[in-house]
């Protein structure tokens, strides 16, 4: 326990929660994966948030005489077939892609956590129903469930977030249910029940904090997966609609010109890959620290 915190802090800090915080922070700072992943991700987030300041052009503005220009001093990432600045579009497009990643995961993780907590804590018929539903959702491979949901809801960006979010619910339900099942056997839960604490109190205050570690790890990797899936749906023409930029949509738009202007697809592709890579690095580091048992 003391390996990861300087002895002086451990000795003078009498608050166990604060000591734990320092211990974990110390380990995070020493994990190469966490540090590298966080730095790259923070740079990307800052650039994307500051798009209106950094971007040299409006992302939808067309410079008709400057179509398909290779990267140069004016257009850092070149221009696309309509003469739009690829660099500005990558920055603005990133806002959408990151938003899709975060909101979809929020939908999936919150719903999945509620379902998993209840199924694991109450068990019985509730557990059977929830787990059957999870089985059914898992019967749709890959992004096919998201595609089926879009087929029902119609194509637009909001529906992409809902579709990707719903399709990830089973992952969170399973992980939270599993952890809840193991935590609820522990004595302090029985003690809380014996003291007459209400179920929602036990679930939120005693069980949830104990399932947070695996949940944080899975959620982190989940954001990477959701960014890939969201961009995939826009790539297929089911999400963000032109002329607005989005990384997946930009790849699709540049596909036609791949023989003459590879830069139109190269940069949005690099942006997705770097973002996803940084999140995966962060996720790997967090897993090693928070939950070494998780292998995948």
């Amino acid at each position: 326990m003391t390996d990861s915190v300087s002895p002086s802090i451990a000795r003078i800090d009498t608050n166990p929660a604060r000591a734990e915080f320092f211990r974990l922070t110390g380990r995070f700072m020493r994990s190469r994966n966490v540090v590298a992943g966080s730095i790259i991700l923070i740079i990307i987030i800052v650039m994307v948030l500051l798009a209106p300041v950094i971007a040299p052009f409006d992302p939808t503005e067309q410079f008709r005489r400057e179509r398909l220009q290779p990267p140069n001093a004016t257009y850092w990432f070149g221009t696309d077939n309509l003469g739009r600045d690829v660099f500005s579009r990558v920055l603005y497009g990133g806002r959408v892609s990151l938003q899709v990643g975060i909101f979809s995961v929020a939908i999936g993780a919150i719903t999945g956590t509620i379902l998993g907590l209840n199924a694991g804590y109450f068990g019985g018929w509730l557990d059977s129903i929830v787990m059957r539903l999870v089985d059914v959702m898992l019967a749709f491979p890959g992004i096919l469930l998201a595609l089926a949901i879009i087929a029902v809801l119609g194509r637009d960006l909001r529906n992409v977030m809902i579709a990707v979010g719903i399709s990830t619910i089973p992952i969170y339900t399973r992980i939270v249910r599993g952890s809840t099942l193991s935590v609820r056997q522990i004595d302090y839960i029985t003690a809380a029940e014996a003291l007459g604490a209400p179920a929602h109190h036990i679930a939120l205050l005693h069980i949830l904090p104990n399932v947070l570690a695996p949940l944080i790890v899975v959620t982190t990797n989940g954001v990477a997966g959701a960014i890939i899936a969201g961009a995939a749906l826009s790539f297929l023409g089911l999400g963000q609609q032109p002329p607005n930029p989005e990384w997946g949509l930009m790849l699709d738009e540049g596909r036609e010109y791949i023989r003459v202007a590879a830069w139109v697809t190269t940069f949005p592709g690099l942006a997705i890959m770097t973002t996803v890579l940084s999140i995966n690095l962060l996720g790997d580091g967090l897993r090693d620290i928070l939950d070494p048992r998780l292998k995948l």
Partner: protein
Amino acid sequence: MIRFLLNRLLQAIPTIILVTLLVFLMLHLTPGDPAEVYLGDSRSTPELLENVREEMGLNRPLHVQYLSYMGNALRGDLGRSLQTNIPVTEQIRTRLPWTIELALSAMAISTVLGISLGMLAALRHNTIVDTLAMTLALVGISMPVYWSSLLLIILFSVNLRWLPAIGQGGFDRVILPAFALALVSAGALARMVRSSMLEVLNQEYILTARAKGLASAAVITRHAMRNALIPVVTVLGLMFGNMLGGAVLTETIFARLGIGQMYVEAVLQKDFTLVQGTTLFIALAYVVVNIFTDILYMIIDPRIRYD
């Protein structure tokens, strides 16, 4: 063993029934009237709409519709495409071979790549080879299939002109899409094989094998590898599912007329019966593949039979 098999099959039944119910309801959850989609905006009059509804059985109570849908499905009739009027099963039948060709090729590539990379990393644990292999695996996992597909086209088709970028039929046309599809799974597999191999290498029977003087190669191939690869079997089903999902993208990019490309077209054109039929087919195929994976796992690893 037979009890395990029966149990596994029985477990799948409620899932299959719920899947069929959900897929059936898809059509009814969709905003808009399937009859209107079938007729299109220009031709629809109230009388015509009523006729089509009657013909499609949309006026009957839901449970009757479900039972008749299932009855037909069991006889291999999943309805007709709203756009082309061709039976859905016929469309699936003509498209399926291309998707299977792609998925199996991709699985083969990803298994070979993933296992070799994972083994290499485990056997050279904590060396530069390990770091490089795992970095490669991480990059593989982080590459969206639509991005790796485009990169492969730029490199092998546009620049080197070694392979055709689009179409189907012939070995040369399946290589690029299969590679693109294989990369993500190969990365995940390499990480899994590495950790499984490292675990096995720490077991006492490996020490025993070494202690009795077996050559290192024999220890690895005969004792370590065989056990380390068992968990790989468990992810084969999952991998196949990922291949089917990924086929939606690779088939669209490489213009292969497989099931995935048909599915995207059906969603884009709001061809609900085709979406419904294909969804049902893919989900059921996936459930069956997973049952087979479990059985295979049981045959390979006798320990789980006793659980």
